[in-house]
């Protein structure tokens, strides 16, 4: 076997994986903390990517800088959705299933709005550094991938330290572990949930931009991203930020290696099959779950 090829696919796998992790943490948090499975999570990621694309072409704004604009927008949108769509369903008998159906609706609306605005053509985020490559010996690092990798690393670490170190983050964790006790200690559950949801959607936007550095995208792409989300979150354990990050890396390495050794069209089949197998044998994830 070709060692250089293996190392190259490992590296590209780790880079892809970190991006899956950034896309996945928010999904994991809303599922774990709020008991809401947000099917539209990847769709918001895609919206972030499209906003970055438009800003890049209109003002030649760097995709990473465009987040300064799109993240607050997504946060605001998420708060509205939380208030008017998520809150009413929290009284349902099975919140988690109801949330899946409702957010399916949001995903369909958003997908078709994007189709109307941006048409179904596949897009690429082509920046000034797209074709630049960092060469270290026999190894190649494409700049856009490096940018996606660093962005994802920073994003996941920020979310991790937010949850571990800040008061707000501790409140989120408390709300997840002991909702009633947390309320006794003065944690406003509704407000915490709204902020969690907003942060999750904003991080999805960042994850979407990072994904757009790696792959071409069009308004239907979120279906594929959604499967990656489920895979990463279920492997990593629901609500577990570091588990999700680790799972992202594992999935990334697996896909990276299979891209190198399998025909392209079999890779997704392998990924989906893997998710089915894991769901059947270990639906609780591979790692112990904790926020």
């Amino acid at each position, binding site marked *: 076997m070709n060692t250089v090829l293996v190392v190259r696919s490992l590296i590209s796998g780790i880079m892809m994986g970190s991006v899956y992790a950034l896309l996945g943490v928010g999904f994991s948090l809303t599922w774990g903390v709020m008991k809401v499975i947000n099917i539209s999570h990847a769709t918001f990621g895609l919206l972030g990517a499209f906003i970055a694309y438009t800003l890049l072409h209109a003002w030649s704004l760097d995709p990473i800088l465009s987040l300064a604009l799109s993240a607050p927008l997504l946060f605001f949108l998420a708060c509205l959705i939380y208030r008017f769509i998520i809150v009413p369903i929290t009284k349902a008998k099975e919140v988690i299933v109801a949330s*899946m159906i409702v957010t399916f609706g949001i995903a*369909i609306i958003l997908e078709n709005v994007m189709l109307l605005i941006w048409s179904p053509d596949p897009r690429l985020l082509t920046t000034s550094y797209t074709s630049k490559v960092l060469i270290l010996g026999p190894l190649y690092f494409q700049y856009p991938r490096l940018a996606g990798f660093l962005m994802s690393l920073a994003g996941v670490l920020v979310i991790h330290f937010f949850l571990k170190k800040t008061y707000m983050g501790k409140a989120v964790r408390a709300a997840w572990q002991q909702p009633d006790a947390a309320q006794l200690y003065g944690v406003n559950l509704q407000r915490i949930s709204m902020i969690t949801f907003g942060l999750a959607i904003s991080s999805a936007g960042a994850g979407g931009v990072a994904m757009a550095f790696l792959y071409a995208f069009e308004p239907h792409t979120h279906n594929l991203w959604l499967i990656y989300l489920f895979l990463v979150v279920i492997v990593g354990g629901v609500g577990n930020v570091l588990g999700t990050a680790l799972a992202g890396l594992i999935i990334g390495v697996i896909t990276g290696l299979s891209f190198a050794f399998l025909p392209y069209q079999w890779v997704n089949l392998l990924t989906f099959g893997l998710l089915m197998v894991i769901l*059947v044998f270990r639906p609780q994830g591979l790692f112990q779950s904790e926020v």
Partner: protein
Amino acid sequence: MVTPDSKSRRLVFWVLVLFIALAVFPWLGIPVYFVSLLFTVFLYVILATSWNIIGGFAGYLSFGHVAFFGIGAYTTAMMINGFDLSPLLTIVSSIPAGVVSALIAVIVGYPCLKLRGPYFAVITLCFAFVVDLGVKNLDILGGPEGLWLKSMDLPIDIIRAIFFEVMMLIMIFSIALGIWTSNSKFGAGLRAIKEDEEVAQTIAINAPKLKIEAFALSAFFPGMAGGVYAYYLTYIHTDIVFDMMISILIVLMALFGGGGTWLGPVIGAVVLTLINEGLSTFVRAEFARIVYGCLFIGVIIFMPNGIIEFFKRAKGVPPG
């Protein structure tokens, strides 16, 4: 259901009149568009009614039901192209298509039905993607080019009318299955599973067996319908018969009308198919889907038990 005898007799009479009117419809020389619209309505009634057996009665939301429809379509296509079937056998061959779908449902259902709630929804969603990609990657199934079917040696009007009648027949059987389920011990068992699976098992309900049976039944009619649909189009492609949107529409139709009743999915399928076809034809497909998305949200928030319950309650009739 206790109804006065004369009232139920009158109801049977009107239902018969409706079915006879539907049966003669394609022979009246009405524009093709309307015949094909009605054909689509039948198709969605079959899909939603069948989905309801596992999704509505048992509460196991399958988000991948389109897989069974597509499997039926491909089974039939392979059979027509593999054997030289006479026109009559062509129609009958949708039955093995249903059987293949049901068998696959048993095999897939065995591990998958152990999962509950969201996990079941995710695994069925994933299953539909796997089947779609698998078929796309297999060259003997036409791969990414799709499959052409030999069409029957008859005038196109007659062929269309025949398929119309066959689809209607399947629809009648699937509705009958729905009615039987809602009144039988089988249906009561499924309702008990939906309410609380652990409790159901303590009162001697064999939940795993019932769930598999329900899943297989709910895959059988979509498989048959897929077979008929494949002939009707004479060309099938994974993007058509494994379209994710169909899976989602089925769920919405059943929930819109009211899952767990036999009438709900029928009403949901009729209303939503007409809205969808109307908007897609006269406005834009994207708008039709945006309306769908809004309906998903509206149904869950404002009428979680479906439109029938919603209107009953609005009129002051107690639920149940």
